[in-house]
């Protein structure tokens, strides 16, 4: 790919990447700055006449089945959802990168053992892995949720990083470093890690989007964000029965997730291109 490796730290130069960063910043600013101006997202002001109200002056996005303000919940929920998805994605990618780098660099028996375990774990439905996490933690705080999603989501990344590391290992700059007497750790951290960063960034951004959706499904396992704390995932889960009769309750968090996924994807893609043409 012919791409400008611009000044590090600058905004991505392609318009789509810049739009993605701006969109993410806007989302972040909204969830951080708006709350003081919003009603309490837990409050159920009128359970008789105030439920499932359509969008209007008092409630810009309407109210849900418990008469709570959907817009307030959306904003507060964004804090949780963005934190969980970014946190879990970072954790998953860090774990995946660690295992992948070691396996790919060490090769031989270490690689065979690690990859066999990764393959086997990939063959185990993620639902069951997540359930095990529930078993170990039982009461799930927010960090537990991040841990659970992150700890079960690194397997694919490790394969990706391993393949990339194996390719790089044979390249001249690594051999040269080795010949110059650099230690394994130094080679791993200084020479290999930065070069697998491209696919990693893409993996992170894709994973962050997936996590937002995953969290909605996790409510079925009791693994989601617990009420009354709103999250985009549990808002979607709670609104499921009213999808047809009061669509605004379900569509609002859905669009929020879509915006989040979209922004993260734009950033990921353009970063991926900057780091060297990896689309996956």
């Amino acid at each position, binding site marked *: 790919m012919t791409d400008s490796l611009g000044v590090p730290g600058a905004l991505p130069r392609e318009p789509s990447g810049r739009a993605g960063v701006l969109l993410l910043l806007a989302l972040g600013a909204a969830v951080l700055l708006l709350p003081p101006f919003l009603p309490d997202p837990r409050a159920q002001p009128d359970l008789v006449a105030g439920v499932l109200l359509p969008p209007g002056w008092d409630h810009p996005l309407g109210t849900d089945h418990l008469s709570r303000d959907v817009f307030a919940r959306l904003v507060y929920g964004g804090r949780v959802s963005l934190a969980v998805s970014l946190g879990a994605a970072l954790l998953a990618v860090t774990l995946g990168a660690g295992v992948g780098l070691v396996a790919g660099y060490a090769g031989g028996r270490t690689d065979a053992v690690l990859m066999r375990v990764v393959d086997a774990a990939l063959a185990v439905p993620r639902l069951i892995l997540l359930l095990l996490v529930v078993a170990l933690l039982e009461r799930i705080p927010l960090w537990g949720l991040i841990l659970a999603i992150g700890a079960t989501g690194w397997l694919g990344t490790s394969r990706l990083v391993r393949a990339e590391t194996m390719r790089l290992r044979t390249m001249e700059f690594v051999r040269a470093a080795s010949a110059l007497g650099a230690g394994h750790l130094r080679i791993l951290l200084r020479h290999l890690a930065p070069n697998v960063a491209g696919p990693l960034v893409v993996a992170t951004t894709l994973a962050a989007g997936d996590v937002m959706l995953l969290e909605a499904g996790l409510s079925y396992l*009791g693994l989601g964000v617990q009420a009354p704390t709103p999250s985009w995932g549990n808002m979607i889960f709670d609104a*499921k029965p009213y999808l047809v009769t009061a669509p605004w309750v379900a569509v609002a968090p859905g669009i929020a997730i879509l915006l989040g996924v979209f922004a993260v994807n734009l950033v990921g893609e353009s970063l991926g291109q900057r780091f060297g043409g990896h689309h996956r």
Partner: protein
Amino acid sequence: MPRPSTLPVVFALAFAAPAAPAAQSPSGTLVIAVAREAQSPVPTLWRGDQANREISDLLFLRLASLGPALGTTDDSSFVPQLAHRWKRVDGRTLRFELDPRARWHDGTPVTPRDVVFGFDRARDPKLSPQVALLLQRIESVTATGKDRVTIRFRERYPEQMYDATYHAPPLPAHLLAAMPPDSVAGSEFAAHPVGNGPYTFGRRVAGQSLELLANPTFFLGTPGPARVIFLLAGDAETRANLLLSGKADAVDNIYTLPNPARLERHPDFQYLSVPTLSVGYANLNHRDPSDPSRLHPLFSHPDLRRALVLALNREQIAGSAYGPATRVPSAPVSVVLERAVKAPPPLPFDTAEARRLLARTGWRDTDGDGTIDRGGRPLTFSLMVPAPVAARRLMASQMQEAWRRLGIAVELEVVEPGLYHQRRAEGRYDAEMAGATQDPTPSGLSQSWSCGAIGAGNVARYCNPRFDSLLARAGRSPSDAPALWRRAVAVLAEDVPAIFLAAQVFVVPVHRRFVGVVVRPDSPWADVWRWRLAPGAALPRDRP
């Protein structure tokens, strides 16, 4: 949830007196969407779940069924089924006389041997552990004549007739006696049960449907619908869709469907209000979750339990989950059970009183963090909710918010069902959203609320010897039983062992294609054979 001002519910009498058998032959196909699959609709293979029992009730009759009032203590209130009369020989003996017209679906007459055989299987703790436990007070069941059966009880107690008829329907001895009991579950009989009821077993498509066919020679009358098809739709969304797309004629309760409001007044359906044996409540753990030998630091105080109840607008909460006809009970007494034992009125919804009670017992917000505390301990606990049950999640959210306004910090724990059952059984919870389908008889209360049932059915680990002794005395003296039961229930109402939220009334939608519709509270579909297809209402699926 908006409360509809006028719910077009036909307050049909849940029971009709046995209608004169119509002369016409069976016609039409009745389709019912159900949530759970009947894996083995055969008595003693029931495995204790409702789904099997509901189908089994169409295939296998009992000696007698509960009467319109569902009374369990009066021998004469029962309605004849396989037995056309019975006689009380003495305080410990009942004698039944079988209806000579009763036949198994293969044409063989129903004999006293079948009755004895059915009880033998039901009372064997290895084969049917749950039922055997309930039939412990039966001493013997013997054939005493060509069509006579005598049942002898170990002691004198009020619900003998109920025990003799409700739990153990006769089984076809001529088909099963030669079979080793263990192999019945995997046998041809279990796959295609041969019963004696208004419907015969048609076919079962695992995970999808179950088809029953009218028994044209049914001795109590000709069934109306020629076929009854149960469609399995575990997802409530699917049941609603089947009903709204015209594929199903009935479901058990619109309030188990998502967003019942859109079904509350649909022109295609008639709505039957059916009192049930279901109660919904929040259990409060009376023992310390981490150390069962100690009392629970919060819920062992009756004043606190009372304040928690006073703080809740239970009518609103239960109504939003189970519909406006639902009643708020003061004790674990379902609408059906209420007929046998009247409970005192529930505590009012009175937040001011709740506040006063809390303040009087020392709960105040001393550190200004919004949560009230006492002796340095904030008033906070967790409320466990099984994730798949939407109604309980809905109620729990409202309770959490109502308590928060009083400065009580409740953490909701929505947990996966397997974990829920485990923690409940082990007593590892503070409070939990529970639901129960009760036995139609007051002595069944001991299964959940007596000291002796701690470690088994008494999940709240509540223990009040006064309640236990009243129940025990009622069990010994049939004549005083009603008064003693009432006093026992009053003890529960006074003690507030749990937060009783709902005595459910189901609203059963049935397509207007069917007339003469009756739904039984103890088994919703047991009387579908009395329904008739309305003239001119036939659909393509009704053609034979």
